[in-house]
């Protein structure tokens, strides 16, 4: 059964079509990686999937419920079903790590404070941050911030966790640690993961399924091996990190480059 479904989603910003009929299906428990170059619409798609942005047209289903037409309070009910790991962590800087992780628990459950304290310790231990409860976010490294933010994202044991560039700005070892956590959540706890990234190594490590976005469209979708063997030249260019393809502006002729500057395309 699909837990997340995106149907023909379109989004236009200032007469520029950022998403042009995106279709995507994510099954329960799988890790879907959405890839694409800068400006291809990945972040916009992510914002639409978590209800932060309304699409121009199309539908988004989370756990069978269409979310595009929900009002704010109805959307809040759906938001409890998923967690989100932001690129910079987005921990509340005025709160300690324990308070950050406890926030969704104190606000959305009627659990006793002692139980919440135990749950916070468990969640922080799950991401390898046991003993860091009283630290402030400003005292942590980038990787630790992301792990703490992940502990907060899974505090309510959501069915889906969305990740926005989880490895961005981290060294390869710390990025691998984050990847391991994502895989653990998926394999051991059965959480569905939707990861937006453009880091190939990480993407192929964690993905059960991959989708490649290009100019607001999904140009390839399938298992990592299918993506690796895709006949689409842009997909090959993207995963190979090569300049040798017609779609890259670095290969534009001088005339085309001047035309794009003059016409603002």
């Amino acid at each position, binding site marked *: 059964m699909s837990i997340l479904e995106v149907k023909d989603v379109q989004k236009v910003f200032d007469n520029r079509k950022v998403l042009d009929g995106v279709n995507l299906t994510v099954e329960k428990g799988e890790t879907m990686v959405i890839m694409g170059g800068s400006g291809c619409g990945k972040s916009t798609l992510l914002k639409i999937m978590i209800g932060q942005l309304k699409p121009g047209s199309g539908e988004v289903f989370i756990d069978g419920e269409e979310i595009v037409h929900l009002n704010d309070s109805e959307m809040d009910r759906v938001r409890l079903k998923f*967690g989100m790991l932001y690129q910079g962590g987005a921990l509340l800087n005025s709160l300690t790590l324990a308070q950050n992780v406890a926030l969704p628990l104190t*606000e959305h459950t009627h659990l006793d404070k002692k139980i919440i304290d135990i749950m916070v310790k468990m969640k922080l231990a799950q991401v390898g941050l046991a003993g860091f409860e009283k630290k402030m976010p400003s005292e942590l490294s980038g990787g630790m911030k992301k792990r703490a933010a992940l502990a907060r994202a899974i505090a309510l044991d959501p069915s889906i966790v969305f990740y926005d560039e989880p490895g961005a700005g981290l060294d390869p070892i710390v990025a691998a640690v984050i990847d391991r956590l994502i895989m653990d959540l998926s394999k051991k706890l059965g959480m569905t993961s939707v990861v937006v990234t453009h880091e190939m190594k990480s993407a192929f490590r964690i993905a059960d399924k991959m989708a490649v976005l290009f100019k607001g469209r999904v140009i390839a979708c399938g298992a990592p091996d299918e993506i690796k063997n895709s006949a689409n030249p842009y997909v090959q260019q993207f995963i190979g990190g090569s300049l040798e393809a017609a779609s890259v502006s670095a290969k534009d002729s001088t005339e085309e480059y001047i035309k794009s500057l003059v016409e603002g395309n």
Partner: protein
Amino acid sequence: MREFAGKIGRSAINFTKHTGSVWKIFREVLYWIFIAPFKGQPCKMKYVADQMNLIGIGSVPIVALVNFFFGITLAMLTSYQLKQVGSQELMAGLVGVSFTRELGPFLAAIVVASRVGAAITAEIGTMTVSEEIDALETMALKPIRFLVAPRLIALLIMLPCLTVVANVVGMAGGYVIGRFNLHIDSSFYIKLTFDYMVFKDIWTGLLKSVAFAVMIALIGCYQGLTVRGGAAGVGISTTQSVVQSIIFIIIIDCLFNAWFYFI
């Protein structure tokens, strides 16, 4: 000319748009302060207490300093004028009424708008650019409840308190001139101050401070929540917050004075 008219038109549209957004925040914050607590969703008193400490206690020294010296200045200027008609002792009442009606609430609000309004915008603005506000929304937590309501409640409580401090300290500044320059006896000076003061002078001043508190909180929070463009955007919004707060304080003050004393 057409360009100028276009500019005016665009400014008017922008002003209407911003006013509409601020009004929306105001309605929402009223819900979280007055209705939500009865539905089992009160504002966190810890956040309110933190803000009261930051906004109120932290502003006492600077409010006192500004009003004390303003009290001295006002006393010197008025006694200089009153000397020409031989009624320098009237200065006590004039300073008292000026502070309770106008200068106390006004100067306290200006100090708080500069100090606290800027801090509110900078803090919320930084949270906006670092996606903390988005994170709150994704956790189904309302930024208005967590960030705006505690600040508004704290300002509604603390700005009238700071106004009382401003009134007392401003009158003390006048007393310094009355006692040491005009050699008026202390008890006589105090009697003169209260002889010319009526209760309306005090409550109208306090009512003004409540309106100023609402304005400072709403502008500060709105500017913070609508920051765009990273650190530079935070700087721009912080400046706008202080400038707009001061302008609106002056306009509201003028309207209140017209209402209380002339209409």
